[in-house]
């Protein structure tokens, strides 16, 4: 990087304005007095009196001197004596404000070579002086015998420094080097972090960051734990012309593995090993503006290492490793991806990890042809899914199998053509034709229970054809200050029955919730492993409204009718998708959605399914949001009635809320809780306090998390963070878990 060229270019003209200008001929001295303003090669100087000696080329300014440097520093001084290209000289009783709002106050300063300024008895702080009485010591400051600001190395170096909090000396540091406002990256120690947990003991970690080049760097972190010893972590990052790669490694040799069994109360994976490690990599490359290729993969010596030591980004119970190639342009999308799923569970006999599928690959190719075909839109959807699994995943003793042991593959291709005709009276008729063909290959171990009906191993296939007609008649109502659109809609889909329903594994269509967003879908299943068959009609009405004061409203309401053939939502499959969903009866449950947002920061929206006979709420979801002035909060009420066939054997009702109140300009308090209404207890609750101003950020939060499977483990945690802007921050947490 070329040194910052501070001195003034030779041809720069000096603009000088003043009340009075005296030219002393024999001493060739130009004296300007009264409101002197000089603009010279990007430097701007203001003073009451300026003497410019043309022979020696010195500029002497005095009286409320203020100088703005091209780099952005603003200097206030009593008097200043510099060369005419401002690169060398002395300044007395001065204060510097850098563009990133930090301050250096010193008795005197010496400037040399245009790039280095040395301050004597300086005070460095990022805090602004207190408006009422500037003399009061700021929140924090560093007093140093010498402060050296260097434009080339882009550093501020403090020698024999004392860190002061509210003016009271806290720590003495032989020397401290900080990156200045221009430095984007600078080698050196980063923020330390502290933690305490039962199994690991007290932990203190300090990362060291080393810049290899503007596009390559390394971060090495050493963390000592009182009970388990030394954890070493390394991260290497490199950026290329069209992408970036990150490589991470970590390892530890545990001193007391049996701590884990003791505190968990059962034998754990963590307790059964001593040498533990992990290697991970992340990358993303833009092949061209339409195509992206990348990966996010992790490999660890045992199945709970990253979670136990809270490795950044890899500490969650569920971790997904994937490799992908994605293309997106015009109206088409392509995504080829492979997945490996990790479940980080400490119980030694847990097989959850082996029950997850290994997917190699899943391909999604959705294309809509740019030109219309027979006046309509032709869409092609292709999905390939090939996966295998070591252990069967069964829901307790129910005949529900989210995953079978063995390998299964499916290739699906689907064509859909649709076209809308609008009559003169505003009636819209949409005709639709769709055809789909599936090829399946099964090499599975049968369900361990009594579930029968699974196709035998080998290849098989099925298909579906659909003819559909939709009629909708949107009506516009306008009043003085609002417009409303009400759109009654009726659809009918004529199809043969779903073949082999329940005979094939269901991997990508396990979730099934009937609501207004799936009411008008041609196929209500959430994936390709199930196909909706039979003749069905969907009827409903959509409403949107908007008001001149900015308020908006919306609502949808409807019902679905099974007219003929096999109702796919009554046939069971390995996961019971569709059972107890409200669609199993001839006339379905009612589904509704409604919401209002007002410019005053209030949003309210709800979605619900009501029993077709008694109108009792089968599934409800209500969200309220309020953002006004210092207060912002969201509240959610959810109510899901039991769906035995689908694997949810109990009613579940929960209230969840999160709110933040900024009660002064700098202080804010936040709280969040989720309360289980069925079991009358808080599932998760927490409160946080935060202070922030231009030079200090402090946050402390307490969280309590009830974990049903491990009621006896400690369920509260405290996290605190104190950060001094431009110096760095100190993190302390008892367990590294995100709060909500």
């Amino acid at each position, binding site marked *: 990087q070329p040194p910052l060229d501070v001195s003034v270019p030779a041809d720069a003209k000096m603009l000088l304005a003043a009340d009075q200008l005296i030219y002393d001929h024999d001493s060739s001295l130009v004296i300007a007095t009264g409101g002197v303003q000089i603009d010279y090669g990007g430097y701007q100087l203001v003073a009451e009196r300026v003497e410019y000696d043309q022979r020696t080329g010195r500029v002497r300014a005095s009286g409320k001197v203020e100088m703005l440097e091209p780099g952005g520093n603003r200097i206030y001084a009593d008097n200043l004596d510099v060369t005419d290209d401002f690169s060398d000289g002395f300044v007395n009783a001065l204060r510097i404000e850098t563009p990133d709002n930090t301050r250096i106050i010193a008795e005197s300063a010496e400037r040399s070579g245009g790039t280095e300024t040395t301050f004597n008895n300086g005070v460095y702080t990022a805090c602004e002086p207190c408006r009422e009485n500037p003399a009061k010591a700021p929140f924090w400051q560093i007093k140093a015998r010498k402060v050296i600001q260097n434009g080339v190395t882009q550093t501020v170096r403090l020698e024999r420094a004392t860190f002061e909090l509210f003016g009271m000396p806290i720590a003495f540091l032989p020397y401290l080097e900080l990156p200045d406002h221009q430095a984007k990256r600078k080698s050196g120690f980063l923020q330390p972090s502290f933690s305490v947990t039962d199994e690991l003991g007290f932990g203190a970690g300090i990362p060291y960051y080393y810049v290899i080049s503007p596009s390559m760097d390394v971060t090495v972190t050493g963390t000592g734990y009182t009970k388990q010893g030394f954890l070493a972590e390394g991260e290497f990052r490199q950026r290329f012309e069209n992408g970036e790669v990150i490589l991470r490694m970590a390892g530890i040799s545990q001193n007391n593995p049996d701590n884990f069994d003791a505190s968990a109360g059962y034998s754990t994976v963590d307790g059964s090993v001593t040498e533990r490690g992990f290697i991970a990599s992340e990358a993303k490359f833009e092949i061209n503006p339409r195509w992206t290729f990348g990966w996010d993969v992790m490999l660890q010596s045992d199945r709970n290492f990253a979670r136990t030591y809270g490795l950044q980004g890899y500490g969650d119970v569920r971790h997904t490793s994937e490799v992908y190639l994605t293309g997106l342009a015009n109206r088409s999308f392509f995504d080829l991806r492979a997945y490996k799923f990790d479940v980080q569970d400490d119980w030694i006999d847990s097989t959850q990890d082996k029950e997850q599928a290994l997917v190699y690959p899943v391909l999604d190719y959705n294309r809509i042809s740019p030109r*219309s075909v027979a006046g309509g839109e032709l869409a092609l959807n292709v999905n390939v899914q090939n996966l295998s699994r070591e252990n069967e995943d069964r829901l307790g003793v129910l005949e529900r199998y989210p995953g079978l042991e063995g390998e299964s593959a499916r290739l699906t291709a689907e064509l859909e053509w649709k076209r809308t005709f609008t*009559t003169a009276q505003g009636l819209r008729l949409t005709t639709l034709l769709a055809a789909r063909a599936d090829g399946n290959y099964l090499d599975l171990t049968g369900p361990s229970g009594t579930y029968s009906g699974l196709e035998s191993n080998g290849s098989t296939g099925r298909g579906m054809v659909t003819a559909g007609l939709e009629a909708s008649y*949107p009506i*516009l109502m306008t009043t003085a200050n609002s417009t409303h*659109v009400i*759109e009654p809609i009726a659809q009918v889909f004529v199809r043969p029955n779903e073949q082999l329903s329940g005979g094939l594994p269901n991997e*990508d269509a396990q979730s099934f919730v009937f609501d207004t967003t799936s009411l008008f879908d041609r196929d209500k299943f959430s994936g390709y492993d199930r196909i909706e068959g039979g003749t069905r009609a969907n009827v409903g009405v959509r409403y949107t409204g908007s008001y001149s004061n900015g308020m908006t409203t919306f609502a949808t309401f409807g019902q679905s009718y099974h007219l003929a053939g096999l109702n796919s939502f009554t046939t069971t499959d390995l996961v019971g998708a569709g059972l107890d969903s409200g669609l199993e009866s001839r006339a379905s449950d009612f589904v509704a959605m409604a919401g209002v947002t007002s410019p005053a920061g209030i949003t309210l929206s709800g979605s619900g399914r009501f029993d077709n006979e008694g109108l009792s709420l089968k599934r409800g*979801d209500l969200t309220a949001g309020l953002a006004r002035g210092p207060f912002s909060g969201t509240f959610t009420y959810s109510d899901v009635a039991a769906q035995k066939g689908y694997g949810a054997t109990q009613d579940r009702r929960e209230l969840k809320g999160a709110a933040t109140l900024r009660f002064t300009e700098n202080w804010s308090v936040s709280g969040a809780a989720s309360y289980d209404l069925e079991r009358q207890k808080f599932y*998760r609750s927490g409160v946080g306090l935060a202070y922030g101003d231009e030079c200090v950020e402090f946050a402390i939060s307490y969280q309590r998390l009830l974990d049903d499977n491990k009621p006896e483990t400690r369920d509260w945690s405290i996290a605190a963070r104190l950060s001094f802007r431009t110096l760095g921050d100190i993190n302390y947490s008892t367990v590294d878990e995100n709060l909500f």
Partner: protein
Amino acid sequence: CQVRPLYGEGGADLAGIEIKPATTRVEQVVRNELIFKFGGGAGEPASPDYTLALRVQGSTGNVLAAGTDNDFTAARTTVSGTYTLTARADGKVIASGVRAATALLDLPSQNYARLRAIRDGEDRAARSLAAMIEADIAAKLSR
């Protein structure tokens, strides 16, 4: 208060709207849905009169954590869209606003099934969002 059909004779004509290219999958689902609703199958207009700028954001949140015996975590996917319709001739803003739609879903114990459930939730919410944006724009254009 005035009541009349939104489309048909003297109603809104949406065939001349072009939509800016999509940057994410969910944004493309909304864009494809709107192109069909505007053109009825005719595809993108060759010489459009209006330009629609669309910014779509999808997010999935847990609602009920899975209890001991229920392996399903009830969840919801919300897709929100900010739109601005400008006339190509003079760049005047005809309509702009924010709309959001929410799809309910369940997250089973299989991680792969979770990802596919979220993908389907995004698609469903995106289609409902497109319906709301179409109605807003049609109402403004037929004023």
